Every structure is written in C-alpha cells, then in structure tokens.
C-alpha cells in the first residue's frame, strides 16, 4: 500500500511498486494532463512536482511516491480564484500554446522555476525550461508567458520593460 498526497488529497493505493508514475497517473488515476513523450527523460512532457521539485514521472516508480506530495497539472490551479494558476493564465494570454502536448510539463517546470526565482531574466527562464521540448512554438511566447506570470505574481504593472531584452 502506497500513501502519498496527490494534488492536495491524501491517497492510499494498492499498486505494483514498479509501476511507472506516469502510467499510474494516466492509466490508473485518469490524470491524463501529464503527457509521455520520450519515456527516457529527454523531453520533459511528463514533468510533475514532487515536494515542489520538478521531476520526470517516466523515470520514477510508484514506490518512490511513498510519503511525498505530488502536484500534477490538474492540481496546480488549486486555491486560485479564477480556476487557473497565474502561469496558465499567462500561457493563454500570450498564446504560448500550439499543439499543447508540452504545455503541462512546461507550466510545471515554470512553476518550479518561479518558486525558486520569482523574478527571472529571459535567459534564466530559458535555462529553467531547458528540460522541456516544444516542437511548435519556437519557445518565444512560452518565455513571454513565464515573464508575464512572474510580473503578475509580483504585482508589477504590465508595462514594465523586460529586464534583459537581448538574450
């Protein structure tokens, strides 16, 4: 029996200990927001937060969830008034989504980044998202969105100039 907290809710699951966390989330719990791209740690699509740290759910086994607190894209918005996390709002407003497959991982990686660095430069955002591949957007609008979300949470006016416009 594995006990952990999933998106704020206590869970107690009888699951094979060697089940990959990405399979547990998607197949067993129906949380299909977490995506599987490469299955080998190279694309970031399966990123989740484990005790607030970004980790790859394709390279974690169910047993490793014991006692941990997990946030998936489905749980990120919890406690927000609008039903969307500021990062999710910013992704919508900036048009940072095309096919959407990388977006859950991208948003969670950004959440990890902003938690540690609330006011990142564009270069720091790019470095912070460097484990997440996007084959559609060219990344510019994703970086814009993370920058906008950082401004929002800092309650800075929207017209604040970017800290370093030249990467």
């Amino acid at each position, binding site marked *: 029996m594995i006990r952990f907290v999933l998106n704020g809710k206590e869970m107690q699951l009888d699951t*094979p*200990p*060697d089940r*990959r966390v990405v399979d547990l989330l998607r197949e067993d719990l129906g949380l299909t927001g977490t995506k599987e791209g490469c*299955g*080998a*740690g*190279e694309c*970031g699509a399966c*990123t989740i937060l484990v005790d607030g*740290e*970004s*980790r*790859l759910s*394709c*390279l*974690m*086994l*169910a*047993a*490793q969830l*014991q006692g941990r607190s997990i946030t998936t894209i489905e749980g990120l918005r919890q406690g927000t008034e609008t039903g969307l996390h500021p990062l999710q709002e910013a992704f919508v407003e900036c048009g940072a989504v095309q096919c959407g497959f990388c977006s859950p991982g991208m948003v969670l*990686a950004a959440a*990890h*980044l902003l938690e540690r660095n609330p006011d990142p430069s564009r270069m720091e955002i790019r*470095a*912070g998202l*460097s*484990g*997440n*591949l996007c084959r559609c957007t060219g990344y510019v609008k994703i970086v814009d969105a993370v920058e906008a979300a950082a401004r929002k949470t800092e309650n800075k006016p929207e017209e604040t100039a970017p800290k370093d416009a030249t990467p």
Partner: protein
Amino acid sequence: MKKVLLPRTLCELWRHWQDEPGAAIYAGGTDLLVQMRNAAVHPPALICLERIAELRGIETEGDGIRIGACATHAQLLESALVQQRLPILAQALAVLGSPPIRNMGTIGGNICTASPAGDTLPPLYALDAEVELCRRDGVKHMALQDFIVSPGQTRIDKGEVLTAIWVPKAEGYNLQHYEKAGQRQALAVSIASLAALLRLSAAGLVEKVRLAWGSVGPTIVTCPAAEEALVGKRLTLETLQQAAALVRQSVTPISDVRADAAYRRALAGNLLLRLLAVPR
C-alpha cells in the same frame, strides 16, 4: 511485478540486499530506468537509495570535501561549499542534463554509470577525487581513475555500494574551466568535453595544470604530455596549439550518432584553445 525497496539507513540496505541479492541498486533512476525500459537489463528487484540520509551530505573533511554519493546534482549546484571550493564541478553540473534531471540524478549515479560522457567525471578526474566504497563489513577507498574501467564498467564488487566521493584540497587553481560541446545547449550528451584546472603565477606563467577530457576515449582521458608542455609557459595561442597537438595524439575517440572520431579528435584539441577566452 518487481519489488522496489527504499531503505532509510545503510543497515536497512544491507538487510534488503541480503533478502534480494540480485537487486539492482539505483538512486535517481535517470539511467537504470531508461535501460530497463529499453529491456537492456532485467533485474529481479530494485533497491532505491534516495532515502538514505547518510548518503546525502556535502561537508568538509580534513583538507578536502566529502560528497555523499546520493547528493543530487541540484543539491550540489546550490551548495555554497561546491560553488566556492569546487567551481569547476559547479560549471559541469550547470550543463548536466536538464533541471528535472539534476533534481533526480546523483553524483554517485553519474560515477557508477561510468559513461565517458558523464559530465561530473572530467572535473573529478582533474581534482584527483577518490571514491568511498562500503560493504556490510567494511569500507575502502580508491582513486576515481582506478575505479572506472571502461564504459559502464567499474571496480565495484558485489555487495559494495558507492557511499561518498572525496575531493582533496585543490592546489590553488585560479583558472578553472569546464566546457562541453554537444549537439545542443541543454539535454545534450557531450561530443567532447574538457575540464581544465590551472594555477597561474602573478606573471601569468602556468605553475600547475590538470586537464581531463570526456567523450574522446573509453574512459575520461588525461594527457600528462600536454600538461607538461604547458608548465612554465604563458597561455598563448602558440603554446596551447602545441599542447593541443599532443592531446589529439592521445585521445582514442569513436564515431557514433553524435560525431565521428576525426571531429572529436580535432575538438579535443580545440577545447584547449578556449582557455584563451576564459576571463581572468
């Protein structure tokens, strides 16, 4: 279904291992779980070291620094001790994998995986690091260079686990440089990499130098001849080119999906020329 055991202490680890002698040991899982997925290995059970607190600390010990084998790359990068005392290791960690890989992968795992492309290895070779190996009834130490034998092969014995890495006091190196050339800037396996530690006199002469290359041989490659060629000299394009020629003779690269051998050989020398561009 395989058992996955998560010991909290070394004592528990020995007990689990006795019950499951064929178990594979892992920490971050960033290598082993990929190999299992590719059906390259089929361990009957797994033991994950991530919860053993004894394996995590980063502290000074004597003149040197002792790094617990299960310290993650992210923990090492954030450590003030690593930033101040082992800047070359911090430089390598900053370009290892990606943020989530650094949150999961450990320095001990990078060593035991024994890939010639392992990013922590060239700095640790250049720093003359030692490994600490524990078994149920004892502990032994070994130079990292002796520990790693060939790609994926180490001298770890059955029943032993890598518990720590010991890095001796650095010799006043005032120029520390790690560079990796890959196909992209992040999430890249290196095509070639170089860790360079130099102590330059006030007059700009090389007093001491240690060099170690990744991905240009079956293990990390050192080149005493190139080091000797630099000692007593000023770092000019000419001296570096002389040393680079010696390096190109010493490396034994292979061709693979990332680059061919001739390119790697050229690159191994050229990485040395970059020392001219390091701010100092």
